[in-house]
């Protein structure tokens, strides 16, 4: 008996050890050539063999790579912030939201459209090579577009299929497109704003039998770094500086990248990220508000984007806020939407949402980059004159140019050190918002048939209690959408509405089919974050994209549209996006309509939290020196690498 039990146990133990051993031989396809780096690079591999003083370690924003051996980023989602989009790929153009500039990468300049926007030519940069030494030419662009058009399964298959009649290489460095219909924004498909259509190296892809399932491993790009190795379980990817970095657009434009190796590492929890940074095993981590506080409190060599409060990155090009489902009563009524806005005390709101750290915007684009100068400041006179009709000849001007001061006061009450310079305050907290006017909100509601019961709770026009459920995601403590819902619900409760947060994993579905009253979906499509063009924002409000409730909407989840906005969109569509002032003027027209109709409430710009350790690397693009955008997951991270300075620490 006894021997039999132990035999069984021993067998199970051996099996378990074998299983552990199996981890040594991944079931995934064979190790790529890149994993078989030259002997000098791989004695037993490991960071121990990568010199720490030449290695930059950053965390992967989007988490553990689910497809570690697959670099075909043209199909599905391939965790391209593991270094593909931000180091090894160069797009035709990139958005840099910190400088407000569009940076040409593989392109040598702006696209040139014909008069009716049915054709364009793009000049390409000369002297660029792929990281395997082959020259980059117009043939690569032509091949890419034709391949994407040809095969169903590529993310951009439909776009190019519907838009492109023909694509030709005029010469090695000029590519010409003929379009099926006028499209003045066709080129933006190649503009990297956390993603774009990347160019394929023709010399590799042309011999591939099935490009949709091709893994493109080893990855070959035109960026300054090339793939060194990766973890088959998706925990890390290592990139190495190209010996011929000067043949990449980054090298040509900005010089030699400083880190020899860049490691993208996944941490499954914030605690591990913080511990890694405190022990100098991670140079850059994306954390939560509390995580940033923990790092700054315990790590002398660490810094945030701002050297002083509010520390955060508050120039991320996404405008957060609240979206109304305008296909549902009573949110189909503009005056009800305005009443809900005026019931918000933005000082309290900001305190509750993000501890006062965000920049307010009264319009549906964030207060960052070139947007304040191009759009928000020019709109201030109009905003101050703008009024709402309260009935009986009474009007109300809702805009408050000093609303940001309420946030400043909140911050001071918390003991934070707030800059006294008004211009700096405006940059940090925005150029005004709307008044807190619950009395005006009440008038608007009463005008529209709403009433209050004996206990002061609002009733709908049909006499039933008014209940608002604010649909949002599940990261109630850290998500920007979630923080908006939490703050809005509290404000509306104070106002006497039975409001609650409806937290769900299915927000994508519910927003898409319109199964919500109010949601924390961004109140408008995110803008590019640089340049004058708001077509990306406004186009999502086009009436032809609005679908009945229950069907997946193609446009913005608010399902709001108007003939007036359609006309603006069409006008913008027919305007050359390189005509700066004309594009800005039409954008302002669209923003005015959005303010009047208020299909969603814009509150504050997205707040990001990054911690940089300066033990091994310095000269980070912080707020005091924003030479480029600060994130390592955005495309222009590659443009940061030539400016980083090694400290020499070992």
């Amino acid at each position, binding site marked *: 008996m*006894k021997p*039999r*039990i132990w035999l*069984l*146990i021993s067998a*199970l*133990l051996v*099996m378990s*050890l074998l*299983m*552990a*051993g*199996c*981890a*040594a*031989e*991944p*079931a*995934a396809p064979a190790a790529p050539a890149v*994993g078989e780096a030259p002997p000098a690079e791989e004695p037993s591999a*490991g*960071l*121990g063999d*990568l010199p720490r003083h030449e290695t930059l370690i950053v965390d992967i924003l*989007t988490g*553990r790579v*689910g497809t570690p051996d697959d670099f075909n980023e043209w199909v*599905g*989602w391939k965790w391209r*912030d593991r270094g593909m989009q931000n180091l090894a790929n160069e797009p035709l153009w990139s958005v840099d939201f910190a400088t407000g500039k569009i940076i040409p990468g593989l392109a040598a300049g702006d696209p040139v459209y014909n008069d009716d926007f049915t054709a364009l030519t793009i000049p390409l940069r000369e002297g660029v090579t792929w990281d395997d030494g082959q020259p980059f030419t117009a043939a690569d662009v032509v091949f890419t577009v034709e391949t994407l058009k040809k095969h*169903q*399964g590529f*993310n951009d*298959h*439909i776009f190019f299929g*519907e838009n492109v009649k023909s694509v030709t290489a005029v010469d090695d460095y000029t590519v010409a497109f003929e379009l099926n219909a006028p499209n003045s924004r066709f080129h*933006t498909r190649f503009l990297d*704003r956390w*993603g774009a259509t990347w160019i394929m190296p023709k010399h590799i892809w042309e011999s591939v039998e099935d490009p949709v399932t091709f893994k493109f491993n080893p990855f070959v790009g035109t960026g300054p770094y090339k793939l060194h190795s990766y973890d*088959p*379980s998706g*925990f*890390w990817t*290592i990139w190495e500086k190209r010996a011929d970095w000067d043949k990449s657009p980054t090298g040509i434009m900005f010089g030699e990248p400083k880190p020899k190796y860049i*490691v993208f590492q996944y*941490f*499954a*929890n914030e*605690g*591990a990220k913080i511990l890694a940074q405190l*022990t100098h*095993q991670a140079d850059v981590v994306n954390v939560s508000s509390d995580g940033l506080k923990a790092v700054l409190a315990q790590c002398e060599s660490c810094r945030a984007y701002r050297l002083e409060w509010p520390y955060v990155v508050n120039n991320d090009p996404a405008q957060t806020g609240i979206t109304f489902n305008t296909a549902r009563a009573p949110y189909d009524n503009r005056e009800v939407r305005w009443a809900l806005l005026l019931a918000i005390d933005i000082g309290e709101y900001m305190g509750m949402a993000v501890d006062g750290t965000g920049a307010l915007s009264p319009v549906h684009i964030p207060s960052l980059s070139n947007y304040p100068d191009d759009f928000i400041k020019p709109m201030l006179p109009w905003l101050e004159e703008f009024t709402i009709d309260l009935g009986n000849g009474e009007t109300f001007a809702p805009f408050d140019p000093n609303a940001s001061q309420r946030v400043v006061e909140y911050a001071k009450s918390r003991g934070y050190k707030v800059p006294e310079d008004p211009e700096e305050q405006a940059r940090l907290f925005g150029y005004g918002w709307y008044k807190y006017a619950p009395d005006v909100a009440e008038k608007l509601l009463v005008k529209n048939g709403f009433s209050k019961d004996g206990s002061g709770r609002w009733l709908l026009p049909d006499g039933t209690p008014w209940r608002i459920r604010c649909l949002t995601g599940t990261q109630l403590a850290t998500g920007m959408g979630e923080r908006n819902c939490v703050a809005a619900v509290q404000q509306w409760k104070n106002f006497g509405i039975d409001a609650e947060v409806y937290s769900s994993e299915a927000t*994508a*579905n519910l927003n*898409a*089919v319109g199964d919500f009253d109010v949601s924390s979906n961004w109140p408008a499509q995110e803008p590019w974050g640089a340049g004058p063009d708001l077509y990306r924002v406004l*186009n*999502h409000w086009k009436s032809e*994209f609005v679908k009945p409730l229950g069907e*997946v909407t193609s446009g913005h989840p608010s399902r709001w549209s108007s003939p007036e906005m359609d006309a603006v969109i069409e006008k913008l569509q027919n305007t050359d996006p390189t005509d700066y002032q004309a594009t800005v003027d039409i954008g302002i027209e669209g923003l005015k309509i959005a303010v009047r109709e208020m299909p969603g409430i814009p509150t504050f710009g997205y707040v990001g939290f990054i911690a940089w350790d300066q033990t091994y690397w310095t000269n980070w693009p912080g707020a005091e020196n924003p030479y480029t955008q600060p994130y390592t997951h955005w495309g222009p991270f590659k443009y940061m690498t030539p400016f980083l300075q090694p400290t020499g620490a070992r």
Partner: protein
Amino acid sequence: MFLKRYLIPRLIQYVLVIVLGITAVFFIPRLLPNDPVLRTIAEMRARGAYLEPGAMDKIISDLQQMYGLEGSLWEQYLAFWGRLFRGDLGVSFFQFPTPVIDLIMTALPWTAGLLLTTTILGWVIGNLVGGFAGYYSNKQWSRVLDAIAMVVRPLPYYIFAFALLLIFAYYLRWFPISGGARLGMRPSWSWPFIQSVLWHSFLPAMSILVLSAAVWFQTMKLVVQNVNAESFVTYAKLSGVKEGRIVSRYVIRNALLPQITGLGLSLGLIFSGALITEIVYSYPGLGTLLYNAIINGDYNLIMGITVFSILAITTSVLIVDLIYPLFDPRIRYM
């Protein structure tokens, strides 16, 4: 007789449970409000892809076609069984177009290696120590062990795991903070890699092992104390049977029977992964794979992992049932 009266009905039951389980696994994810196609679109948008609004209907129908979500539920169900019989679990929606089997086989060795080892070691240590502690329950060392187990067992796992991480990885820096092996190291049968895996697995393994051993210890101790009070044990003692023989042949052997059933079930559960361990230690494995599959409505991946889990649990229970007579001579299937 054994074949007809026990084995065949038991095997039929085994197959039936698998079919019903897999059927439930097919339908339940489809009741989730998460539509994988919309989820994919939302993820692509959230991660920077600008999807032309005018092309949305076409994108949706393309994705449905690629994911095999066209046709009625019944047609999808039949197609699913057809694929399953060919050993094809389909492709992951979220990690498209990676085959589900590839994802599982990459994660499984880590999970199985960690959980199989800790489950078995925890069972052996807990039962062995618990057995002796139960038999010698009046001894001082037995009381001390009991007190330790009483303190350790109710500790929330994540607190315990994180405490180990803080103490041994951050303050003492004896072990790594995260990962399954050293950064930059590709899996191989080399000693440095095996050494690195063992080094990285130590804290995750200890966190599971200590708590599971405490559980087995407490249950075994109680069962042994009960068995110890049985008249056949008293009779053996009065008959002058050697104490070692009484402990091993009469007491522990009898007390072990329910523990073996427990072991069988625990082994089956391995295929569900160890989500919290994976999160605390950033350890690769099936747990996060399953979690992400559920969050993203990745039907194929959910089904793939749970098919393995169903097969593992039902098979381990079947094996335990069949080998039970080896441990308990009173049970005969004849």
